[in-house]
């Protein structure tokens, strides 16, 4: 790696890259308490709590990023923050799973639901219009 006094930081989330650049120091809200990472830190892997990641860039400015949780991976010259885009907690996930199940069950129950009915009506209207055009064209030609 290039400069021994800086550490390369990548902050990425599933929906996009948030930050990428060199830093002299990185602070992150690890699950066991806030940690500060300087260049040549020992390899570390930790989960993150919701909070802010502070990056002191090589240019001397400080940048703040909010993360909703996730994980941080530290290698001597590379820090990767895998940020969650959504707030995660066991019970929130649990509730979301339940909602997904319910949606499936509901959809199965109402077999003649209005979406399919609307689709059928639209299909019918389209077919009728086509027939009309054909009949008209035939009349014109014949």
């Amino acid at each position: 790696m290039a400069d021994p006094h800086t550490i390369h930081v990548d902050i990425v989330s599933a929906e996009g890259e948030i930050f990428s650049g060199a830093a002299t120091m990185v602070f992150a809200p690890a699950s066991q308490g806030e940690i500060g990472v300087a260049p040549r830190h020992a390899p570390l892997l930790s989960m993150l709590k919701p909070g802010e990641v502070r990056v002191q860039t090589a240019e001397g400015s400080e940048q703040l990023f909010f993360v909703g949780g996730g994980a941080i991976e530290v290698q001597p010259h590379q820090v990767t923050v895998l940020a969650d885009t959504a707030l995660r907690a066991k019970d929130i996930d649990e509730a979301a799973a339940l909602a997904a199940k319910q949606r499936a069950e509901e959809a199965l129950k109402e077999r003649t639901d209005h979406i399919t009915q609307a689709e059928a009506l639209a299909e019918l209207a389209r077919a009728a219009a086509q027939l009309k055009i054909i009949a008209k064209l035939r009349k014109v030609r014949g």
Partner: protein
Amino acid sequence: MPGTKEIRAKITSVKNTQKITRAMQMVATSKMRRAQERMRAARPYAEKMRNVIGHLTEANPDYRSPYLQQHDTVRNIGIIVVSTDRGLAGALNANVFKQTLLLMREWQGKGAAAKLCLIGTKGLAFFRRLDAKILASAAHLGDRPHVKDLIGTVKVMLDAYCDGEIDRLFLVNAEFVNTMTQRPSVVQLLPVQAIDTEDLSDHWDYIYEPEAAQILDSLLMRYIESQVYRAAVENVASEMAARMVAMKAATDNAGKLINEMQLIYNKARQAAITKELAEIVGGAAAV
């Protein structure tokens, strides 16, 4: 002899339809570009995740995460099917469903039943008619799917895997090859296939906070979620590309129809004029 007025009305109506299809084509084009960007944006996360997981599994060979565990006998398979919410996208959804049915039949031959997880209303409408077991569904994700809308759906399938309700998990979606081509792709999500690490010679381990097992499990969960997210975003790009092509064809067809009708209109108009002339001449001769 049909009235020229009727033909003219028909031409106007087709022209209006053409305007709509052309507008839809343009909207789809710009949405496709944005969806492609989002597809690209999702890539670094998945790659970094892969690296970390690869390292983690290698450094901890004694811990077997439930997501990595191979189930020896396969009695049930789970399939996550990604489809669109709206129609007018050519054969996109039909192809994905066909691929899914093929997959289901293939495993049925091996004595495994399928349990489905459906993303998108079209998939729900299609598989509801079949006798398939649906575990979970998510719909109306819009043009910008978010990870948070997918967490619940994915969790149902992950839990089903851990509880032994399903022994394999597949993901089916429309792969975006290019603007003209989208083909259904099938990926196995669970058990997570061995991730090869590039530098095996490099032996070092992390300091873990908390312990490695817990981190590995939650990382694997996020990894699978990110794959499903990628599939959803890719499906949007495919949907837009397919709609763009379909609407281009519709616009062209409308143009052809207009030309044809214009010809008929001209003929009818000319015939009416000739007839009128003949009548006038005939009338004058009689006088």
